[in-house]
């Protein structure tokens, strides 16, 4: 029955992956809704600027903050769903096993070093900003900018966790030569 057991990933592996993915999915599903107030803020700005001739001082700051939050916090979720663009036309000639082995090597040799360094640097960047209670001088509203800087290390931490989940998926495929069933 060892053969049959290899057809689907063992429950323990699925549970571990779900645990590692949970933060990416939960954060993304919250962050996605930012698009609604973002649209609302700008429509409000357009109406008050062009119809009532009273532009707001805050709308554009809110806009880039929300857009920046939205795309950063979705990055790990996009990795989970396999949407980051790959030029995988050479790879498709290989068996799932070898594709997964190449992926594993690159996760360990490329992904974790790059994202790990990025995490560490952006953490310092955010911590310094929080300490100074930094505001954004390029805007007349001078909003507090440190919350947006915190988004960076959070994004990269999510990417590190999601990367671990991807490694777990790839090692299973490397051993069984079966594509990992897509997560729901």
């Amino acid at each position, binding site marked *: 029955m060892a053969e049959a057991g290899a057809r689907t990933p063992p429950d323990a592996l699925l549970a571990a992956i779900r645990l590692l993915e949970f933060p990416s999915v939960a954060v993304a599903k919250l962050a*996605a809704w930012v698009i609604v107030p973002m649209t609302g803020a700008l429509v409000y700005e357009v109406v008050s600027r062009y119809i009532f001739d009273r532009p707001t001082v805050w709308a554009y700051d809110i806009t*880039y903050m929300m857009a920046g*939050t939205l795309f950063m916090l979705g990055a790990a979720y996009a990795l989970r769903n396999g949407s980051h663009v790959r030029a995988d036309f050479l790879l498709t000639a290989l068996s799932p096993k070898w594709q997964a082995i190449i992926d594993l090597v690159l996760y360990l040799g490329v*992904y974790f070093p790059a994202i790990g360094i990025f995490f560490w640097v952006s953490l310092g960047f955010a911590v310094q900003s929080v300490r100074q209670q930094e505001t954004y001088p390029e805007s007349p509203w001078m909003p507090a900018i440190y919350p947006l800087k915190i988004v960076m290390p959070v994004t990269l931490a999510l990417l590190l966790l999601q990367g671990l989940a991807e490694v777990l998926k790839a090692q299973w495929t490397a051993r069984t030569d079966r594509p990992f069933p897509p997560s729901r």
Partner: protein
Amino acid sequence: MSNPVLGVVSLVVAVLGVLTGFPMAFMFIFVALVFGYAAIGDQVFYLLTYQFFGLMTSVELAAIPLFLFMGYVLEQSGLMDRMFEALRMTLGRLKGSLYLIVMLVATIFAAATGIVGASVTVLGVMAAPIMIRSGYDTRMSAGIIAAGGTLGILIPPSVMLIVMGPLMGVPVSDLFAGAIVPGLILSAVYLVYALVRSHLNPALGPPLLYEGTPPGGWQKAKEIVLGVVPIATVIMATLGLIIAGVTTPTDAAATGAFASVVLSLAYGRMGWSRFKTAVFRTLETSAFIMFLIGAANFFGAVFARLGSGTLITDALTSLPLPPTAMLLVMLFVIFVLGGPLEWIPIVLVVVPIFIPVVKQLGFDMLWFGILVAVTLQSSWLTPPMALSAYFLKGVVPQWSMKNIYIGMVQFVVLQLAVVLVLVKFPILVTWLPSVTGLQ
């Protein structure tokens, strides 16, 4: 090894790295970190954070998620299906009518979305089953859906032009205005080609058969008024405001998204679960596009810091070529790179190398930008990385990859012909921006 040479080596390594099939964004960050650290040490880390932070504080690029939202709302609302049905009812009797309908819907949808994926997918889902049932030619059908859907990245609003504007120092609204005529020319050329082919050989696109009684004139008019007019109005209003210079693209993206939500609600097609789908797709697509932009920006910044761009610029300008030949060489390089690469690295890494050359040759930057945009249309259709073909295959699994590719080749040839026409007649690009008074 001198820094500029190191930069060129890093470009080669990055391209090889991308070919391993690993997500491009992470590969670019890694390669730029390694080569950047070798050349400029710790500074490279600040460059990385500041590139991403710059992206996060850009109001101009905030238009990208908003236009994506607008596109996904319209996709989910089913309004495109309704438009398709209305046109089918009205035009179905003509020879090759489905080609005409696909191009009309593709052009209107291109003016509603800034990307390619949604257009190709929606057209594939709506048109392909009817084309198969009506005995349409597989290659021509696949080609026109893929090529028509790809117009989304050229006809404004276009995510690609939003990214190009700040890079070239041209206002995005001017690029939008400049892309309209070339976009419509492409759309017309595809259409005429398909119609002439199916007129000469009716087997390529037979007229549609109706089950039951054919619709009357009154009913046709009603379907057109309800199915086509409102959506066209929203789109024209959004684009019109940008091109007339009344609002910024970001403002218009928000009002366009808002209008699309209202319109979808008014038509009663948009339920909660469809709205949720649009919201989550917006997040996912924004995330991978913007993250790749950040990574390619970082790579480009390191490359520029190493002085490699200047090296290549000097090498190019010292070639004994007349300006037009030089322009064609640059466009050809972009066309060839469109095979294995995606538009984001091409626009953010390769185009900046060419910009100083273009300036030195004294070409109009707006015109050059549009030439690049039209040339890059083919990057979606040329193998090995032909994303439009993948999207189409995803929704129409009955069509073989081989037929899709062969079907697309004829449209790539048409695209290149249009590029040459635009090179010969720059006024086709510069006329509309000059009329809107912004140039």
